[in-house]
């Protein structure tokens, strides 16, 4: 693993990290825009999320009297963990050293760390809404976790590695094959992504209606730079799941050599794939209605079932042949 210590590779990894950080608000802006058009609204400009972040970052931060140090530390940890998770994901190129820091299980660990502090922050001030958000978030994540890992394991069973970079190289290198397992894993992961990023039908990112919110309830007490970090982390998470789906299931375009031309092409390809996924997400959000909280387990059970069927079709249909 000597190549992992070269300066060029590391600087590319840092570049990729900065790029995803910069791109995250854009994806949210795109989804909002498409959604607005689908609903016959003009919608805000694509750069609106950037403006919001810039505004929040310059504003004064208010903290409740009852808040403890955890409340003030949480935004940094949530943002940091989510960013590291997004940065270690091979977005543009495989074989970057950052991918070796964290395989897909570690990735899930980072997201869990971010969620842990997010939920603690929700409980910290001692308001009923915060507790409600935390409690619901932890339930949904507990049900989403097995579905996500089983889906990912289905893929790793084919690729014999949990390193996402390795998985992509494997899929790129193999001749085209229709694999039912991958199809099911895609379905499962898409459902998990919807649940984990707090989109309709599990949660509504646009609502502040008291009793239906989950993610918004946890960050209700935040303001100023703290809120900016929390919002940015949520945007990064959406980008993370988008990239995960785009690059693992449709790895074409990802650079396998670290050359500028290949990297530029990879960036374009990723942008294209994410744009399509964004449209699909907006379509889903426009056509579906939000579920009652206790319908969410059924939704996630479906995700888990899909993941399991993916595993079975791998074992029964693909290996036996």
């Amino acid at each position, binding site marked *: 693993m000597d190549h992992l210590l070269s300066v060029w590779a590391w600087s590319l990894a840092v570049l990729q990290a900065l790029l995803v950080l910069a791109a995250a608000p854009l994806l949210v802006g795109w989804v909002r825009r498409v959604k607005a058009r689908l609903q016959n609204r003009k919608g805000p400009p694509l750069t609106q999320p950037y403006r919001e972040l810039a505004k929040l970052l310059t504003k004064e931060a208010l903290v409740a009297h009852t808040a403890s140090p955890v409340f003030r530390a949480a935004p940094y940890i949530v943002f940091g963990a989510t960013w590291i998770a997004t940065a270690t994901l091979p977005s543009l190129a495989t074989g970057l050293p950052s991918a070796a820091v964290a395989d897909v299980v570690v990735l899930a660990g980072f997201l869990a760390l971010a969620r842990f502090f997010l939920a603690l922050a929700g409980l910290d001030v001692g308001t009923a809404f915060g507790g409600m958000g935390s409690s619901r978030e932890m339930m949904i994540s507990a049900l989403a976790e097995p579905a996500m890992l089983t889906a990912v394991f289905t893929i790793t069973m084919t690729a014999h590695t949990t390193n996402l970079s390795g998985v992509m190289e494997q899929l790129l290198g193999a001749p085209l094959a229709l694999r039912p397992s991958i*199809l099911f894993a895609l379905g499962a992961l898409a459902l998990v992504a919807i649940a984990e990023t707090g989109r309709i039908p599990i949660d509504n990112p646009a609502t502040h209606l008291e009793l239906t919110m989950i993610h918004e309830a946890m960050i209700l007490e935040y303001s100023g730079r703290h809120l900016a970090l929390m919002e940015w982390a949520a945007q990064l998470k959406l980008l993370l799941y988008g990239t995960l789906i785009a690059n693992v299931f449709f790895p074409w375009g990802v650079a396998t050599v670290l050359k500028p031309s290949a990297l530029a092409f990879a960036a374009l390809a990723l942008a294209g794939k994410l744009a399509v996924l964004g449209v699909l997400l907006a379509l889903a959000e426009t056509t579906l209605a939000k579920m009652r909280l206790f319908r969410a387990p059924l939704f996630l059970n479906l995700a888990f079932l899909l993941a399991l*069927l993916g595993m079975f*079709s791998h074992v029964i249909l693909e290996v036996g042949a």
Partner: protein
Amino acid sequence: MTHLTLLDQAVFVLAAVVLFTCFALLTQARLVATLRTFAWQGGLVAAVTALMAAAHREPHLYVTAALTLVLKAGVIPWMLHRWVRRLGLDRHVESLASPPAVTLAGVGLVIFCYWVVLPIERMELTATRNVIAVSLAVVVLGLLMMVTRRQAVSQVVGFMAMENGLFLAAVTATSGMPLVVELGVAFDILVAAVLFGVFFLQIRDAIDSLDVDRLNRLAEGMEQE
């Protein structure tokens, strides 16, 4: 996996989707949606048959595929749907006691079926012999559906799903049965569907419901007489 032709791989994908529709049937609460899922399953089985015909150059399978499509994705679901409407069950929702438990049982059955079928798969049949495990699972899941449902119509759907599984096994493992047999089976199914319809009416007239759990009261009733 990659030594198979793309057509064969497509057969696998469709077979896996058939398995998924079985789980959808198991946990689907609304009767109309159950019928729709069943129609999809029939369509998928027909598609598998057509693919097998293309992959292995067996023209008679095209006939079978067309027949399956018409019967299982068209006529039978449509008939069942008509019965349901006639019986006023359009909005019927059947709540399972615990959908996750049924799903888990189904998952266990799939593993079991795979384990049972292993020796058969070692025999050199067609390239798509792996589908046998899936077919057996479809049969068993259909039976599981009949066990867990109390509604007579859902039970019939379960029965038909079992038949789908058998059909899938026949098509994928041995490139289909002789055409005469298939025609006969298809006709049987059609007749069965009609008979079931008659039974529905009879049951409803007798006990004023299609809940099969209430059929046992007939026996008690006779004892009282």
